[in-house]
């Protein structure tokens, strides 16, 4: 009999429906000739929400290509091959290459032809982002603009308020400029109320998801990471929509209820691991493989914070869910208010964007905080060749864990390109890691 009771998540089907809805919406916009905007979802995704449009986000699209190709990878392999035939090097961001390939094959992974956007809009959050959609725009022949972004430093570096103000103004003013530009290239009027709503909803949705992650400190964990991928993606895809806020409210209630009743994501939890970076989307079975040892991944900085929403508690040197405007007692009345709030939200509370650029002491501190607060026994780090940003500082993190006697395992791979991943070798590494922790498979006990 299992150690803990398990129950399937009531919200599960709703999550699937919402996610599919995004991609169906894009297909519909394509077929009806209505507005599509493309760009990274790791960006100021609320910006184009002042228009009635569908947003095609490059990262989740790439992840979907790979994930949907688990049984038959031929379709998305064609995308990679097309990008390589067009001479794009293989060590570039694998999401980006899938995007290139998808366009070059005139194919939409969810059926039909490639949904060409009205314009591309990006936020330059890593070396790749700003250039990615520059290239897409050249290929597609559509207008392109980009908000440049210089993150706040990690709190431990004590950045001056003056430097932060410069960054706030820089991002805010670019946002205002980009709104004017979007009106010009689309020929449509920007609706400030829609935009303000989108900013509010983004902040509320990410706050709620952060609170869901906090619930996972419970022993046993109420979510395991494989499950989390289907839940966090709602924030990734559509955090600026009310439906995301409603969904996370429901999910939070359900998770808190599960925690109160001791319901586990995995009934035989006896070892808690923290993952790092995107998972190998083509080989998510490694999370199920962990269960053979009684191990569960309780999450990652990536899954917790990919959509933002984490504030810093200086006194206790820890992070907690950031308050959205309405909770913080702030009413966003104008476009300028919204841009100012939004710029600060992305700078101050989006620690994943920060960690794509700045690692060092700050990132180590953040990781250690998660290890402590989520009662983690070991860390499993995906040295992800497909994403430079998430790989920034990983080796130093490993060094730091080693110095602090936190067991860690690294495995090399690529989040979207299966050719760079060796599943048997990875499983062998997991076996070895478990052995060093003194843990055997249940079947071998």
């Amino acid at each position, binding site marked *: 009999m299992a150690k803990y009771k398990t129950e399937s998540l009531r919200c599960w089907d709703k999550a699937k429906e919402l996610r599919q809805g995004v991609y169906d919406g894009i297909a519909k916009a394509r077929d009806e000739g209505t507005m599509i905007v493309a760009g990274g979802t790791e960006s100021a995704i609320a910006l184009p929400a002042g228009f009635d449009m569908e947003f095609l986000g490059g990262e989740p699209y790439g992840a979907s290509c790979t994930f949907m190709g688990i049984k038959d990878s031929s379709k998305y392999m064609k995308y990679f091959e097309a990008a390589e035939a067009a001479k794009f090097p293989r060590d570039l961001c694998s999401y980006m290459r899938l995007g290139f390939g998808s366009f070059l094959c005139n194919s939409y992974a969810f059926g039909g032809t490639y949904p060409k956007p009205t314009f591309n809009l990006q936020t330059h959050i890593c070396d790749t982002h700003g250039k990615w959609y520059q290239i897409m725009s050249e290929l597609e022949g559509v207008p392109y603009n980009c908000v440049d972004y210089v993150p706040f430093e990690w709190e431990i570096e004590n950045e001056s308020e003056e430097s932060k103000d410069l960054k706030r103004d820089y991002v805010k003013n670019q946002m205002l400029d980009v709104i004017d530009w979007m009106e010009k290239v689309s020929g449509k009027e920007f609706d400030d109320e829609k935009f303000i709503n989108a900013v509010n909803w983004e902040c509320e949705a990410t706050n709620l998801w952060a609170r869901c992650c906090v619930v996972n400190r419970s022993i046993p964990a109420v979510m395991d990471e494989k499950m989390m991928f289907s839940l966090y993606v709602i924030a990734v895809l559509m955090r600026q929509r009310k439906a995301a806020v409603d969904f996370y409210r429901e999910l939070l209630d359900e998770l808190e209820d599960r925690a109160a009743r001791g319901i586990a994501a995995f009934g035989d939890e006896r070892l808690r691991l923290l993952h790092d970076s995107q998972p190998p989307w083509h080989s998510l079975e490694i999370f199920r493989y962990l269960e053979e040892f009684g191990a569960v991944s309780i999450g990652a900085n990536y899954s917790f914070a990919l959509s933002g929403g984490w504030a810093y508690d200086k006194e206790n040197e820890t992070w907690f869910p950031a308050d959205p405007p309405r909770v913080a007692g702030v009413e966003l009345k104008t476009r300028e208010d919204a841009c100012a709030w939004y710029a600060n939200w992305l700078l101050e509370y989006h620690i994943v964007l920060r960690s794509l650029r700045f690692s060092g002491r700050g990132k180590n501190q953040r990781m250690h905080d998660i290890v402590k607060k989520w009662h983690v026994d070991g860390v499993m780090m995906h040295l992800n*060749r497909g994403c430079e940003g998430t790989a920034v500082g990983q080796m130093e993190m*490993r060094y730091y864990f*080693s110095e602090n006697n936190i067991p860690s395992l*690294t495995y*090399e791979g690529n989040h979207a390109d299966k050719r760079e991943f060796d599943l048997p070798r990875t499983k*062998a590494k997991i076996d*070895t890691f478990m*052995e*060093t922790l003194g843990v055997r498979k249940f079947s071998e006990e």
Partner: protein
Amino acid sequence: MISAGMDVGAKTVKVVIVKDGAIIGKGIATAGLEATGAAGAAWEQALGEAGLARDAIEKVTATGARREEVGGYDDAMSEVVADALAMHVAVPEARTIVDVGAEEGRAIKVNADGKVLDFAVNEKCAAGAGAFIEAMARAMQVSMAEFGKLALESTRTIPINAQCAIFAESEVVSLVHDETSRPDICKAVNDAIADRLAAMSRRVLLQPKVALIGGAALGIGLQDSLKRGLDLEELVVPENVQFFGAHGAALSASEQ
């Protein structure tokens, strides 16, 4: 108790038989695409040396990437923990183990009790594994034994790119065309491989004493290069470098 360990590696199968903690028989055979024949030959050798029949073995633990191809064992364990167990017996003062197999190089950090604290495995690139060394020796048209001997005759240091095996091979070809002396090239190749191993080893924050094992550890050129690459005063190369995995597995079998 009489136990045995079997290490089915990428290239060779090793069997070690242990009685009351001491090794009484060893066997090694080269596996081709199919390992069962080699396993049989290794078993035969080991049992012959021990003067025992197969059914005298009370328990067999296996390790190595290809063990499932061969079967015939009661339990399995990782090479990393097996190496650590055997090293604790052979060289108890060792705190870092560098194991260079045909396809994989590993660095293992152990404490005074022989417990594994950390480990690293060379990742994508082949330049840190035994197969690359053999490929280079073939390209130079020398035997593995000569390869090491020649390296020690060199007095020059020629840098070779150590990250990518393909690049490294092109550089060797360039050196050959430039009529660089064979000792210098052999040393340069050993240095390049040792650099890759050293880089990997540093990931476990290595501590002395450092011990080198695995098939490639037989190379005297590599031993010299690694000692210099890691700035070591002493690099321990124990007896029976190829048998640590199998020995550790045998010890593990006798514990249970």
